[in-house]
C-alpha cells in the first residue's frame, strides 16, 4: 500500500495546524476566569476524546469490512485505528486528572465521561493483549476483529450504565467566548489531523509488515 503522497500531505497539514494551535493556546486565548491557566488543557483534552471516539468507530467499521472481505488492508486499517485511538484515550485519561486536580481538587473523580473513557481504555488494552498473545496470521486478525466489534457494541451500554451509576457531572453545555471557540476549533482540527496522519502511517506500516510476513511464509 502506498499512501505516500497522502501521508506527506496529512503530516504537513497536521504540523501547520498544531503549530498554529500551540501558538493560540499559549499566546492568544485568554485564561478562563475561575480555573485559570489550567483550563487550557481543555483545548487538547476534548479534541483527544473526539479523536479517540472517531477512531474506535472507524476500527469497528474496518473490522466489519475485514470479516466480510477478508482483505489484509482492512485489518491493517482497523489495527491502526484502534492503536492510535488507544493513544488518544490515554491522553484523555492523563489530561483529565491534571485538569480535575485543579477544578475539583482531586486527581480522580468517578465522573461519567472520564469513567467511560477508562472503561474504553480497559477494553482496547485487552484488544492489544489479544494481538500480543497471538501472531500475525489471518486467524489473529479475525479474532481481533470480532473483539473490536464486541467492544464497540458495548460503548453505548457502558455510557448509559456509568451515567446512571455516577452522580458527579461534567458541565453539560459549555458556552465559549469567541476567542476560545476559535482556539478550540483550531486545536480540534490540529488533533484530528494528527490522528489521521498517525493512523495512515501506522496502517501502511502494518500493511507492509503483514505483506512481508506473508511473502516469507510462502
Amino acid at each position: 500500500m502506498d499512501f505516500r503522497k497522502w501521508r506527506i500531505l496529512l503530516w504537513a497539514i497536521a504540523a501547520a495546524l498544531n503549530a498554529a494551535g500551540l501558538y493560540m493556546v499559549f499566546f492568544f486565548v485568554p485564561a478562563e476566569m475561575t480555573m485559570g491557566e489550567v483550563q487550557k488543557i481543555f483545548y487538547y483534552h476534548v479534541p483527544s476524546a473526539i479523536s479517540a471516539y472517531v477512531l474506535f468507530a472507524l476500527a469497528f467499521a474496518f473490522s466489519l469490512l475485514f470479516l466480510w472481505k477478508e482483505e489484509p488492508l482492512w485489518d491493517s486499517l482497523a489495527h491502526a485505528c484502534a492503536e492510535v485511538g488507544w493513544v488518544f484515550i490515554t491522553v484523555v485519561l492523563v489530561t483529565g486528572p491534571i485538569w480535575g486536580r485543579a477544578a475539583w481538587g482531586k486527581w480522580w473523580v468517578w465522573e461519567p465521561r472520564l469513567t467511560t473513557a477508562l472503561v474504553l481504555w480497559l477494553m482496547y488494552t485487552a484488544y492489544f493483549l489479544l494481538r500480543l498473545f497471538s501472531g500475525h496470521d489471518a486467524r489473529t486478525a479475525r479474532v481481533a476483529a470480532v473483539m473490536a466489534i464486541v467492544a464497540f457494541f458495548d460503548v453505548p451500554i457502558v455510557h448509559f450504565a456509568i451515567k446512571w451509576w455516577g452522580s458527579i457531572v461534567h458541565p453539560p453545555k459549555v458556552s465559549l467566548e469567541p476567542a476560545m471557540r476559535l482556539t478550540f476549533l483550531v486545536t480540534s482540527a490540529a488533533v484530528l489531523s494528527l490522528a489521521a496522519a498517525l493512523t495512515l502511517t501506522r496502517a501502511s506500516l502494518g500493511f507492509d509488515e503483514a505483506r512481508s510476513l506473508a511473502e516469507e511464509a510462502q
Partner: protein
Amino acid sequence: MNYWRAVWMIFAKDFREEVRRKENLAASFFFAFLALVLFYFSVDPTRVDLGQSGAGLLWLVILFAGNLFMGNTFRKETETGTLQALLLAPVDRSAIYLGKFLVNLAFLLMLEALILVFAFILLAMPVGEHLGWLAVVWFLVSIGYSAVGTLLSSLVAQIRGGHVLFPLLAFPVLIPLLIAASSLTQDVMIGQSAGSVRWLQLVGLFDTIFLVAPLFLFEYAIEE
C-alpha cells in the same frame, strides 16, 4: 439435522461431559465458596452491613468464579481436535454457539444458586425475602454474561495460552452488566424498586445485543 436438535445435542453432550468430569465445575464452585469466605475476612463485619452494601460483592464472586469454567468452553474442543468435527457437521455454526451458550447459562445458574445459599447462611444477607425477583434479575444478567463469555471464549480458544486472556477480555466488556446487576440485586435485597426499571432495560439491551450479534459473528470467530 434440525437446527434446534443440533443445539440441544451440543448442550446435552457438553453438559453430560462436564457433570461427569466435574473438573471445571468443582474448581469454580469451590472458588466461589473460598472467595466469599475471603471477602468476609477482608471487611470489618461490625462496620460494614453486607445486607446494605454486599450485593456487588456477590456479583464479583460470580464473575470471578464463572470465568473459571466459561473461559474453557472451547478449550477441550481445540485441544482434542473435536472442533474440526463440529465445524464439519452440516449445521449452521450459530447452533454450536447456542448450544455452548446454554451450557454456560446452566452452569452459571447452578453457581448462582450455590452463592445465594452461602450468602444466606454464611453472610446472613436478606436474599430470602424477594427470592422470586432475585431469580428473575439474576437469570437476565446471567444471559448476558453467558452470551459474552461464550463468544469471547471461542476467540481465546484459538490462541496459544489464550485462556489467560479470557477474564482480561471479558471483564471490561461486562462492566455495564456488573453495575446493573449490583444495583438491581441491592434494590431487591433492601426492598426498593425506584430506578430498577431503567437497569432492567439496560440488562435487556445488553442481553439482546450480545445474544444476537454472536449469531452472525460466531461464524467468523471460529472459522478454520
